[in-house]
């Protein structure tokens, strides 16, 4: 069972939910928590894992041997990301734009292009209070999150309940995280921003054909827009979390909600059972 915790808008409580869900389930199930927000992984701040292993994430980028090159321009033409430019008798490469697809070297008629590894991040894993913890860390300044996320996913233990903490937004890193999930929980807040970004997130998971439900965080503030939207679209709101100073205080101290307020544990177990029922249905 793979559950991805995603959101359009940032700061709506993805990590709050994923850490509490993981800790609530760990006594009864094997649990993997995969922090796929590789630009700013923060689940570790709450779970304080003992890291026991790590590996480098590299992508293969082109190196052009100009003495073999006839400057035909084919490599530049086939590059979907404009990471290679042919100018008269020079070839320029832009490694930071390269997605590592290998089309340029594969299609070069002169075999003038080889590939070299470029380090873009690391994946770390370890144990966090009985939870298998994995996180990806994209090197600061790098733009290519999906290869790091895909490596995080390779380390998940299939027999576990896998909880993926997704990056915010709806772009490639989110799609890479959500891909292959059995269920997606979309976090939002009852504000016009929350609603706008929830709609984008809903469009994304519908396109990916993944069952989903909504959690509304900080209820009691804002307006009824999100609730009305969910009703109109027949989207199941699986949990609401009130705007509460105590919850915010715990979070700001790095305490997982279900540890600081154990009365929440049964609600997270219920949340899992609701998800399971939807997935099995």
């Amino acid at each position, binding site marked *: 069972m793979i559950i991805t915790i995603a959101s359009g808008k940032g700061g709506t409580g993805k990590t709050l939910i994923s850490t509490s869900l993981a800790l609530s389930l760990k006594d009864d199930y094997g649990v993997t928590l995969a922090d796929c927000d590789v630009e700013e992984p923060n689940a570790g701040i709450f779970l304080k894992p003992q890291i026991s292993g790590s590996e480098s994430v590299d992508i293969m980028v082109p190196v052009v041997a100009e003495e073999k090159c006839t400057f035909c321009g084919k490599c*530049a033409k086939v*590059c*979907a*990301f*404009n990471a290679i*430019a042919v*100018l008269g008798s020079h070839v*320029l490469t*832009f490694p930071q734009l390269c997605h590592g697809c290998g089309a340029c070297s594969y299609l070069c008629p002169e075999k003038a292009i080889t590939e070299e590894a470029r380090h873009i991040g690391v994946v770390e894993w370890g144990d966090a209070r009985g939870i298998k913890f994995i996180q990806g860390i994209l090197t600061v300044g790098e733009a290519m999150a999906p290869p790091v996320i895909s490596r995080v996913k390779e380390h998940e233990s299939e027999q576990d309940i896998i909880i993926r903490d997704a990056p915010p937004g709806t772009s490639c890193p989110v799609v890479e995280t959500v891909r292959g999930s059995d269920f997606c929980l979309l976090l939002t807040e009852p504000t016009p921003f929350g609603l706008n970004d929830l709609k984008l997130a809903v469009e994304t998971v519908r396109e990916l054909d993944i069952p989903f439900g909504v959690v509304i965080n900080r209820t009691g503030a804002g307006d009824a827009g999100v609730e009305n939207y969910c009703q109109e679209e027949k989207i199941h709101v699986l949990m609401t979390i009130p705007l509460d100073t105590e919850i915010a205080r715990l979070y700001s101290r790095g305490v997982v909600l279900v540890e600081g307020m154990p009365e929440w544990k049964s609600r997270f177990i219920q949340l899992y059972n609701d998800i399971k029922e939807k997935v099995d249905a």
Partner: protein
Amino acid sequence: MKIAISATGTTLENDVDARFGRCSYFIIVDPETMEYEYIDNASSQAGGGAGVAAAQMIVGKGVEAVLTGSCGPNAYNVLSPAGIKVITGVAGRIGDVIEDYKEGRYKESSEANVSAHHGKS
């Protein structure tokens, strides 16, 4: 010798587009004769590397200078080695900009004036 200007439209009455790689059009003009053509910028909606692709296309046009609002490092690193002067911070009606260029009111930029991905919406 011709120059290229990033443009919001297809005539000299339109304004300079503030973005280089993701501008709507390029106006290629000979400032002496004011003869010009426009080019749709095929890179304006590129997923990535719009500046590189636009710059490569401009290099193929054999211009001596590019006038634009902002130019990022990737585009600059294609244009500059190709011997094309890059002039940034340019704004206003294209016809007026060409007059200013002829009178030598613009100074060549020695580096990109914005970071990569600046014009990406």
